[in-house]
């Protein structure tokens, strides 16, 4: 099975698919699957842009809406996780995972699926210690605080992934596992990303949650993005232990290394995305303690035995099959011929895929529940975090060199 891995998508689906097709022609190969490591920007219409945390100059509709509307269809099955630049309202609809567009599958805030017999897990978002132990209190429409915190990794989702016992073949995280640079040529990395050096030396570069998952899951492959560069590492889990091939990739720009093809031995096709039995069992076990307010989950509150969950889920999947529920549109897609988008509401509909999955698992729908703190969300946020939004260390003007170069290019072109 040949898998294309892509770093940050940033809505450039058209050019990524074109590049893959170009690679196929050039090398005489056929790619079976595309994995995207976040910042997918599944923006369906103008209102989704409200939930996308980017500066104005990057507020572009890009190309996802064409795939959502059916104008274009992804030429290969695509699986993605969320990053820190997402239409977070849409991803929340698909918290448990689902088709964001035909042939384009969102893995969920945390999730595991099977593609053929390859087991793929992932964690969406980026790690932020302040929000890690909070519940999923954010609801669209987001304010200036929640539009950022909504994509911060939560302990609840990591905890669920930590319950996975069966081997994971490929894992995706948007930010890099903390300490991963120890296992690659970080000296080479800092030659062109000088500003990484302090963090690397101080072991503060990366996600602690992802590092914990790397230790636990020990997958043969781990792919990340976020830092807009290519970096490979080879991790050995203890003396004589299994190894993890880590690769971070860039974002989609000319002459940048944003794609990688890997070839994994697998059973012969046809390949298709399927629900993972163990993961659904974990979902069923932990959904009763889904933290929907600022308060973290009570991890001791799950009384169901995992084996019972497995047996129950197995029975349901044997009856129904493991194929995910079909894609369904929930809001109108962007239409370039319609300049006026004021008629679009800040709607956050229930996604039929999510409803169907929960129905399959005999779980209640919780994503639109209004938490007790909902009414005072905007006032409480700074208090709970112990800091105002201004103090949020992530909220600095974008001066990533990549973006500077881009803006310089744009300026050159447009002036």
């Amino acid at each position, binding site marked *: 099975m040949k898998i294309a891995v892509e770093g940050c998508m940033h809505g450039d689906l058209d050019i990524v698919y074109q590049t893959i097709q170009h690679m196929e022609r050039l090398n005489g190969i056929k790619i079976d699957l595309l994995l995207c490591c976040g910042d997918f920007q599944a923006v369906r219409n103008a209102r989704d842009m409200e939930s996308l945390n980017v500066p104005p100059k990057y507020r572009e509709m890009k190309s996802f809406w064409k795939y959502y509307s059916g104008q274009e269809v992804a030429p290969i099955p695509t699986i993605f996780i969320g990053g820190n630049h997402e239409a977070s309202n849409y991803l929340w609809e698909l918290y448990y995972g689902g088709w964001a567009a035909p042939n384009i599958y969102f893995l969920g805030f945390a999730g595991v699926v099977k593609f053929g017999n390859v087991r793929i897990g992932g964690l969406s978002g980026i790690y932020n210690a302040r929000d890690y132990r909070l519940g999923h209190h954010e609801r669209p429409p987001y304010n200036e605080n929640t539009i950022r915190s909504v994509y911060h990794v939560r302990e609840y989702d990591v*905890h669920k992934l930590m319950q996975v016992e069966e081997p994971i073949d490929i894992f995706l995280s948007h930010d890099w596992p903390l300490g991963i640079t120890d296992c690659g040529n970080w000296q080479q990395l800092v030659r062109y990303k000088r500003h990484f050096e302090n963090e690397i030396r101080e072991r503060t570069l990366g996600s602690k949650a992802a590092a914990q998952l790397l230790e636990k899951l020990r997958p043969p492959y781990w792919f990340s993005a976020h830092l807009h560069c290519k970096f490979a590492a080879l991790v050995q889990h203890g003396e004589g232990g299994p190894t993890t091939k880590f690769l971070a990739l860039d974002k989609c720009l000319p002459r940048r290394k944003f794609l990688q093809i890997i070839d*994994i031995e697998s059973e012969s*096709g046809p390949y298709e995305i399927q629900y993972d039995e163990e993961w659904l069992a974990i979902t069923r076990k932990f959904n009763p303690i889904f933290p929907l307010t600022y308060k973290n989950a009570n991890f001791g509150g799950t009384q169901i035995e995992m084996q019972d969950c497995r047996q129950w889920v197995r029975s349901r999947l044997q009856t129904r099959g493991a194929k995910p529920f079909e894609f369904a549109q929930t809001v109108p897609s962007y239409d370039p011929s319609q300049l006026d988008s004021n008629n679009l509401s800040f709607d956050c509909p229930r996604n039929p895929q999510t409803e169907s999955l929960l129905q399959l698992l005999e779980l209640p729908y919780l994503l639109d529940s209004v938490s007790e703190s909902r009414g005072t969300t905007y006032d409480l946020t700074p208090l709970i975090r112990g800091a105002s939004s201004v103090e949020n260390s992530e909220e*600095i003007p974008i*001066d990533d060199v990549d973006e500077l170069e881009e803006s310089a290019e744009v300026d050159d072109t447009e002036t």
Partner: protein
Amino acid sequence: MEDSEKRRERLKAMRTIAAQAEASSYVETPAVSGFLANPLLESPAPLPPQESRATPRFDFYTDPMAAFSANKKRSQAGNQAQQGYVTPPSDRNSPMARFSSPHPGIRNTEMTPSPAHQMQSNYSPSQRMYQAQGSYDSPAHFRSPRASPFPMHQENVAGYYYGNPPNTHIRSPYPNCGGNPSFQPVGSPGFYYGERGPPQHGNSPIPGSGRGGGSPFSGRGQGQWHGSRANQVSSWSDRRGRGSRFHGTARDEKLGPEPFYDKSMVEDPWQNLDPVVWRGVDGALNNLHTPGSSNSVSMKKQRVSESSNKSSSQPNLAEYLAASFNETVKDAAGV
């Protein structure tokens, strides 16, 4: 394709128009300098009542490094050598990863044609059980302009949407139907067709888009509005009263895929690396995931650990290990 000279002139003209419009109206325009005012903006969108929304939200950007970095400002000059990162030279071959699963091995140094390229196109009767409510089970396949083999249920593609669940507090222009777990069949009043008309079949572009038959979206998928993105100014303004420009496609798409391809994309990125034993995460991380533990205490410990690390100058491995050990001992004693 518009050449750069014409484009400059056109943009310059637009700026002039925008400046005039700004001067002659009371329309609120972006406070950030350097952004083009929206000449089509007639009035600012009404602001929602939440007071927090009065503050511009997009003045800041989430720096990927910010959560871990004290060094937030980077100079452009400091990164000029970034292109062309190569793995370190080494004569050693990459060791095969030890697979705990039955799918070992990367063998991508030489690609061979794949015998099969399958889409999500298989249906089994058993898998349809939860799709038997009608709307999910159409046998009809949507063919895209790119002639993808993906079978799309045309009802879902043709422009109807699932609305809010019952009792939703959010106003929706669409009929409510999402609250019903048994999805309504095609053609029921619950499906929103909007202005686009009923579902359409075959090689049509977006239904109701007014482009008629044929496929204006062939080729590289640029669509009809590429190259005129500067004119695609939406009258929608966001909650901050800031005009928004929506660009249909990136300028890079004009280039075609060639500049995006690099031969390293099909080479083994680990071939020159030696495995390094994972030394684990530090004590702070070991505290990271302790269900039932006091969040505030753990986070404080974590911050203390981080700040102490930052204050030290490049501690070596032994120092890290010692710090980690001490942290663990402290935690054990505190339980």
